[in-house]
């Protein structure tokens, strides 16, 4: 065994292992990546029902309904980014930090009659909004972090310049339809 043949063996082993790792990753990237979607993206084009996605937004105030099917507890709530709302159905215990009017990420699949979550995540820290949700809110123009905390989620589906001045009723049924062009709180 000379140095050269040893080096050859080493290189072969490295190439084999790293090649296998790369192949596994590429395969997993094509099937196991979970995309983040906002309710308005879902409204525009729903992801296929076999694709797991993370749906992020704020829980619409007053939208949480709990029911029982046999002994199984089921929670339904609307998640909004201010442009659209999606009804989420979740079997199980909502996390301790789950609150109406606060940010949430639901992991699951989109079906015809709504989003079925397998997991609902609320962050450890109450004041902390998931980065992805904050980004989505900023993009939709509903919130500019420079001007204080996010407005109550209840107001978003109807928040226009005129509406913002009125006393806002909680958002109605999740229509999923985009509302009037959003205005940032700054211009009010």
């Amino acid at each position: 065994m000379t140095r050269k043949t040893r080096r050859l063996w080493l290189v072969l082993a490295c190439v084999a292992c790293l090649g296998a790792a790369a192949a596994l990753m590429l395969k997993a990237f094509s099937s196991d990546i979970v995309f983040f979607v906002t309710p308005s993206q879902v409204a525009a084009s729903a992801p296929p029902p076999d694709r797991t996605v993370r749906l992020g937004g704020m829980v619409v105030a007053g939208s949480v309904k709990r029911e029982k099917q046999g002994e199984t507890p089921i929670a339904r709530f609307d998640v909004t980014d201010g442009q659209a709302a999606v009804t989420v159905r979740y079997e199980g215990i909502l996390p301790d930090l789950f609150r109406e009017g606060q940010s949430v990420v639901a992991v699951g699949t989109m079906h015809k009659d709504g989003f079925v979550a397998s997991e609902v995540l609320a962050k450890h820290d109450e004041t902390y909004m998931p980065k992805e949700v904050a980004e989505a809110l900023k993009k939709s123009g509903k919130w500019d972090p420079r001007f204080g905390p996010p407005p109550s989620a209840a107001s978003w589906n109807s928040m226009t310049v005129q509406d913002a001045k009125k006393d806002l009723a909680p958002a109605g049924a999740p229509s999923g339809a985009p509302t009037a062009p959003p205005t940032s709180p700054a211009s009010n």
Partner: protein
Amino acid sequence: MLSPELGHYALALACILAAAQGILPLIGAQRRDRRVMMLAPGLAVGQLLALLASFLCLVNAAVTDDFSVQNIAANSAVSKPLLYKITGVWGNHEGSILLWALILGICGAAVAAFGRNLPSALRARVIAVLGAVAAGFELFCLTTSDPFARVWPAPMDGQGMNPLLQDPGLAFHPPILYTGYVGFAVPFAFAIAALMEGRVDAAWGRWVRPWAVAAWCFLTCGIALGSWWSYYVLGWGGYWFWDPVENASLIPWLTGTALIHSAIVVEKRESLKIWTVLLAIATFSFSLSGTFLVRSGILNSVHAFANDPARGIFILGLLAVVIGGSLALFAYRAPTLTAGGLFAPVSREGALVLNNILLCSLCAVVVTGTMYPPFMSLLFDRTISVGKPFFDATTIPLAIPLFIFMGFGPMLPWKRAQLWPVLQRLWIAALLAGVAFAVFTFGMSGIPPILCSALAVWVICSSVLDIADRVRLFRMPLSGSLQRARMLPRSIFGTAIAHAGVGITILGLAAMSQAQHKIVEVPVGTTEHLAGYDWTLTDVKQEPGPNYTALVATLEVRHNGKIVTIMHPSKRSFNSQNQTTTEVSIHTNLLADLYGVLGDKHGTDAAPTYVLRLHYNPLAPWMWLGALIMAIGGALSLSDRRMRVGAPRRAKSSSDTVTTA
């Protein structure tokens, strides 16, 4: 007396001492001036004392509820129990950086104390590198995250600590994990010192390995403790979430595991030297970037502390200097390190090389999975996440060959070996693994768990057989075997125990994939059936706690009519922060965990119903038990006298350095 200002001053003093520690011994080593080199141990101990004083001041401020200190006001409260006032010191960004620096100081002083048999130039350089790193982080602490900053006017009461963190498991998880992270600074410093000297030899391997093994033991325990905490506190029945912070601890663990194996080859055969130096640099670099990238909020994670751009830039700069500098030195000096002994592909060295390649491939996969989402969002503005499906699909196929080779690797002779005789000695292990495979095929579902548990049996059995073979068990009288066992170096036992620990952890992980659970909403008095157990909710009542009120359920679990346990899962509402936490109740018999969670109360007050989540988690304790056994194996090989009193003499070399006095 122990005022925050004194703490601040002590921290600044530590920073200056660390800077001196980072510069003077290097000059001394370069000029071969023994008097200057001898400053290193004193400076290291001085820096540690200053850091200790600083840390005590912060603890004192926390214990005495000094809310004029901003850090205390933001994270503590009068009503918080004393234990959490103390442990809360490191439960936030500023305090955790100070703890980090303190542990680094302890490492430096430990090298000063235990490194007496090192050549004085090497010791001076190692201590200097540790000092330079410490100076950087103490400067970071002083300039961007001062734990002693005062706030005016001082509030009457603090804002309190996140109740989730008020838990003994989490209280001690950070110090242990940090000791693991920071401990790898010592092998790193050895690697840098070796590059400066331009020589790596068997003696270097022998010096560096105990430090790496010690850090690895702490890191293993720290990861296991964190995982255990999330299992019993978060109440989701999960133990590992592939969260960026968890991955940040797993990545250095993988390279660190590779390091403690490749250092053996350096020590025994003077081979793989360049690779080992690179691994030492990589492990500490991953520890650093793991802790700080995550803590600075660059990676989106539940563990991230408050975000501050100034911190981010300072940290990025520091990381660039430490990692970039060491890699540049490596690139400049590595070619001067001569290649060592030759070996055949089938040999102990070959098996250890394979171990390294597979561990590094695993590491590459975890790094990619962790870093891909932030890069995608930064470069292409697409928000994605990778989770368990991704990591399962990529890590399991790479881990399987690792487990196979783990079985017979330790039995291969050095230099060149024949595979067949070794496999012949392991036929019992192979047979048992085959039987286990057949049994698991009926008892479990899913190919990866079945395969992994069969391989776990293989790993455990071959570790046991290795020892049995070495002591010639049943091939000579028992007293002779015992005599041989006594003569066997402890590191051999350490290896076998650590490998068996890996097997036990894998069995736990594989069995956990077969866990069953059930979520129900029931009134008091209902009985549920899960996994052969009858779970009856007999009572739910309100109970007051020190700083919370709790809703406590009583859950009677019966098996075949006999009562197994009475569990009390509860839900706590904390007054100070308007938060609730879920207190899981776990009953374990070491073969399975019964895990009960109390959810919300629904229905009217007259006829309330409660949401319950019941889990049956087979072999769950084995996951952490295995990790503990791994750490025990590591500790046992640390106690090997060859590691302690070896006091290896360095072979004379042409470019001689200053030798020991």
